[in-house]
């Protein structure tokens, strides 16, 4: 059939090897050399500590959050990174979503490369409240919630980005300088 043959021809064509200018290697290594710290410096320990915590909310706070449906709460602490860390300073930000019927919720955004596995949100027993804490340095971040691995939800209480990548809803958070 012409149509299938044509698509298969496109596929075969696209599978051909592509040659990227090897000068890119040099540019990458130059950029790396200009970084303020060496490789692989973990924010990892701090990251895991932060994301692994369950957060307890006051009843008043929980009520307010539920009424608002979703709230991003300004950070509760600052984390000073090690002197050789990539991030000079981080602030913890709590993201909260009320979604009683979800089996799992992930926070995805620029800060975790939109990786749904990296920041699972934790459910507060009994109230359908999901939360996660992310350490962020000053900057502008787009983010969204991923419910049950398939439903993308923007934060209705935060500005919506106009530059979403693929039409999926997302919100924007701007972290000011310290």
């Amino acid at each position: 059939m012409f149509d299938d043959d044509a698509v298969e021809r496109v596929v075969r064509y696209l599978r051909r090897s592509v040659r990227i200018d090897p000068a890119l290697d040099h540019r990458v290594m130059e950029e790396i050399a200009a970084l303020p710290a060496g490789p692989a410096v973990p924010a990892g320990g701090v990251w895991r500590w932060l994301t692994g915590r369950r957060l307890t909310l006051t009843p008043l706070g929980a009520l307010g959050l539920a009424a608002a449906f979703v709230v991003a709460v300004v950070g509760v602490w600052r984390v000073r990174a090690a002197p050789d860390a990539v991030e000079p300073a981080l602030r913890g930000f709590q993201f909260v979503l009320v979604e009683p019927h979800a089996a799992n919720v992930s926070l995805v955004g620029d800060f975790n490369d939109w990786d749904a596995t990296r920041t699972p949100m934790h459910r507060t027993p009994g109230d359908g409240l999901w939360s996660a804490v992310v350490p962020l340095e000053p900057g502008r971040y787009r983010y969204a919630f991923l419910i049950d691995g398939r439903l993308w939800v923007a934060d209705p209480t935060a500005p919506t980005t106009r530059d979403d990548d693929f039409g999926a809803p997302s919100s924007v958070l701007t972290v000011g300088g310290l």
Partner: protein
Amino acid sequence: MSKGRCDATPGREGIGDVGTSDAALVRRVRAGDTAAYADLVARYRDRLGRYALHMLGNREDAEEALQDAFVRAYRSLARCDDPERFGAWLYGILVNRCRTTGARAARRARRFVSDPTALETTPLPGPAEQTEWDDIVRWALARLAPEAREAFLLKHVEELEYEDIAQLTGAGISALKMRVKRAREQLQAILREAEHV
């Protein structure tokens, strides 16, 4: 993402793992041997570049996304939990960088057309102007919605399994299958159109 599948997929074609393994290079970088990272960049440059090039449609944007992915991966190397799967992990970063770069490119394009309605109805260059097959393919890909193009390329060109694509993109498997199906249908229609012009 199953381990065996991911180990094999990103570099299925071409470059074999001759010499130092990814894991060994990652360990050297983590130990402070920054130069070892150049080996990883060289190893993955072309194979990941193919996806970036097809996804973004031009070399400038593709190389920007690729460079950004490599640098981000370097900065986050501590979070690569399984160095044996560095390639799959890097692939995920690139997919996201392509999204960001693609969105930025779309914004650039929008600056020239302030009326969104006009943008949607403005036809892309017609196939009559594209005489080479390469141009036709790029033209056809560019007409796919970004999420459909992404799913189509990951499934049919990069030959990933749906489970792996779901991990990389955050989309559900059913949604991905639908995107691929629609992408194929759209491509068929576009190519048929090209055939008749």
